[in-house]
């Protein structure tokens, strides 16, 4: 119970689908979703495989609380070896797809091999079958999702699919579900494309049972009652994550123009307030509503409507209706990172990323690197096909997102990601990446804890693998940052393995989370056990990455953050000070001074 106890195994090479029992010993130690999916990947594949070969697995994983009444219990993940980084990839999404899969009776779907022709998977409760997807290959996510629902006559079904970016195996391709939600990071969409898997359509009617329903609902209510009145919840509900932009700009931690600057002069044209202001053309604001994922009581999701007279969408009906966004990360990546203050251009880029299946963070951050390469003359209009890639050029954003989404022209180069692009054109130092993954919207010179979090993240630069936000915004020193990074890495590894969202943040401490597991799952789940699961998962990912050649020597940041002092903001004159934090971090982790888990640490966590 809470776990469904079943895995769907799909061999794409032979076209077979079969049910396997869930390994309950592993479930007890790695819980679900991120932890359990990663355990299966690690046990079934060599860490040095080519991520785009049939040897890779594509694992679709729910957590034990996915699809239950637990607030925020709609999360699910895509797990594989990343074609962007070479490290372990676990990309997390919300919406309704994960809960539907769980209600269909499956904890996970594991795809292996490669189909000889495009296919999609249909799941209807216990039944699973592969269908020919030739008619859908080459079509966008926004075309395929409604077409599949219509074909199967079920508007209530949920779909996750790849767009043309995934088909062309862009290393920054995403898997998109429910039209606007993304398992975005680490190029998981390219792995799906490499397997000739276009989509999954799921319908589940079975429900999810828990061990002690009355106690479970009491635990759910207690946590929800704590979350509801918090400023964090209220603000995320009213302004979404976009509210972060004023904070990072004020603080001086808003990555701008490929991290050359840390504050953006055009911020007021693209911040959370800007989307509420009625525009001249039709008197409507960009923001038209909010949306929530399955079971969520925060509802941070935004629904936006682009100006119908904007040049990029004139005459294109599909862009002239409400759609997801803007969120902070895509607004940061298309806006300040590229020096662009045109709100409609940001909105358009976001729509195309959803339509064609691109990771908006990696796309925007890679475009910003291309803009700096263009500025120094390392690439010219000869390479870009005549497009002027100057910082601040909204037309360049519009043109490049279209080309990258389709895998055409210079868009193929952007699809490589920032690291490969900058290496190809002779300037690897201009890639703002860790382990090959592009920065989210937080600058490590001002946010020291986030810098440590990026440097040690198991999937490359990431703002969701740790949560040192409160401490970073309180001080630009390194004091106490290693401790909060270590704690929140373990906590988020746990939360990502349950089917819950990390956005409640410190409002929910482990003592608010453990009672839900204890009431839902077989056995006892005290705080100590759940936190040990998080730490175990973190160390397991570390071992995999080291075996894949991405170990402690990659615990670093670009030279720009390590050597170039910040020009403005709270951290003016400072660098990331990573060397001050790493030794303390390794010690807190029970790792050797050179960053490897000690035998006794592995023994304690059951990884020896």
């Amino acid at each position, binding site marked *: 119970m809470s776990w469904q106890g079943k895995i769907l195994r799909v061999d794409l090479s032979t076209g077979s689908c079969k049910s396997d029992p869930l390994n309950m010993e592993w479930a007890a130690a790695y819980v679900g979703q991120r932890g359990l999916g990663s355990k299966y990947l690690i046990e079934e594949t060599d860490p040095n495989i080519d991520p785009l070969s049939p040897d890779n697995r594509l694992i679709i994983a729910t957590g034990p609380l996915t699809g239950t009444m637990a607030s925020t219990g709609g999360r699910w993940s895509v797990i594989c070896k990343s074609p962007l980084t070479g490290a372990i990839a676990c990309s997390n999404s919300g919406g309704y797809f994960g809960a539907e899969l769980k209600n269909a009776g499956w904890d996970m779907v594991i795809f292996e091999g490669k189909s000889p022709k495009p296919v999609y998977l249909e799941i209807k409760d216990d039944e699973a079958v592969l269908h020919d997807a030739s008619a859908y290959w080459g079509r966008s996510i926004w075309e395929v999702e409604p077409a599949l629902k219509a074909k199967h006559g079920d508007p209530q079904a949920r779909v996750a699919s790849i767009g043309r970016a995934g088909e062309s195996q862009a290393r920054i391709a995403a898997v998109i579900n429910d039209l606007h939600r993304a398992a975005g990071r680490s190029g998981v969409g390219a792995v799906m494309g490499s397997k000739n898997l276009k989509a999954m359509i799921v319908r589940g009617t079975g429900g999810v049972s828990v061990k002690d329903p009355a106690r479970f609902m009491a635990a759910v209510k207690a946590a929800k009652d704590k979350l509801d*009145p*918090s*400023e*964090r919840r*209220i*603000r*995320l509900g*009213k*302004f979404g*994550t976009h*509210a*972060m932009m*004023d*904070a990072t700009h*004020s*603080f*001086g931690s808003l990555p701008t123009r490929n991290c050359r600057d840390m504050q953006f002069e055009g911020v007021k044209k693209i911040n959370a307030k800007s989307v509420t202001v009625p525009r001249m053309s039709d008197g409507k604001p960009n923001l038209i509503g909010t949306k929530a994922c399955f079971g969520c009581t925060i509802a*941070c999701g935004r629904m936006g409507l682009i100006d119908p007279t904007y040049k990029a969408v004139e005459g294109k009906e599909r862009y002239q209706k409400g759609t997801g966004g803007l*969120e*902070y*990360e895509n607004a*940061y990546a298309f806006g300040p990172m590229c020096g662009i203050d045109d709100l409609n251009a940001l909105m358009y880029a976001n729509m195309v990323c959803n339509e064609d299946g691109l990771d908006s963070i990696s796309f925007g951050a890679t475009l910003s690197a291309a803009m700096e390469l263009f500025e120094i003359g390392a690439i010219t209009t000869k390479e870009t096909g005549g497009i002027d890639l100057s910082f601040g050029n909204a037309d360049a954003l519009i043109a490049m997102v279209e080309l990258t989404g389709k895998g055409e022209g210079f868009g193929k180069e952007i699809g490589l990601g920032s690291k490969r692009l900058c290496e190809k054109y002779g300037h690897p130092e201009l890639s703002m990446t860790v382990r090959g993954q592009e920065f*989210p*919207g*937080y600058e490590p010179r001002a946010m020291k804890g986030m810098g440590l979090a990026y440097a040690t993240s198991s999937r490359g630069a990431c*703002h*969701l693998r740790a*949560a040192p*936000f*409160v401490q970073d*915004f*309180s*001080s*630009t020193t390194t004091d106490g940052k290693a401790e909060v990074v270590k704690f929140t890495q373990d906590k988020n590894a746990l939360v990502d393995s349950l089917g819950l969202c*990390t*956005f409640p*943040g*410190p*409002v929910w401490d482990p003592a608010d989370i453990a009672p839900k597991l204890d009431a839902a799952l077989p056995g006892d789940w005290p705080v100590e056990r759940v936190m040990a699961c998080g730490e175990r998962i973190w160390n397991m990912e570390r071992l995999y990455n080291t075996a894949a050649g991405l170990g402690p020597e990659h615990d670093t940041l670009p030279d720009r953050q390590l050597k170039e002092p910040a020009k403005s*903001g*709270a951290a*003016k004159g400072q660098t990331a000070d990573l060397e001050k934090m790493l030794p303390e971090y390794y010690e807190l982790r029970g790792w050797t001074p050179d960053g490897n888990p000690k035998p006794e640490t592995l023994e304690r966590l059951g990884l020896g």
Partner: protein
Amino acid sequence: MRISVEVHAITCGLFPSGEGELDLPPGTVLADVLNRLDLKTDPDEVYPALVNGTPIPPGERDQTVLRDGDYLVVFPPIEGG
């Protein structure tokens, strides 16, 4: 003395529009101003506060004396993206 205030929290009772100015007696410390802003929230939550662009940690706010012309920015506890 007079200071400028920019507040990005939606529950600020004193400045519903998010910005304004405050007349304060000499010797006023940051903690006093934050209390006057009427930021209704969980007492465990920390609102980041910058004085002239410098973040002031929670433990220093009752010793941080404000001066005429200071610019205070307050934003809410928020994370993610």
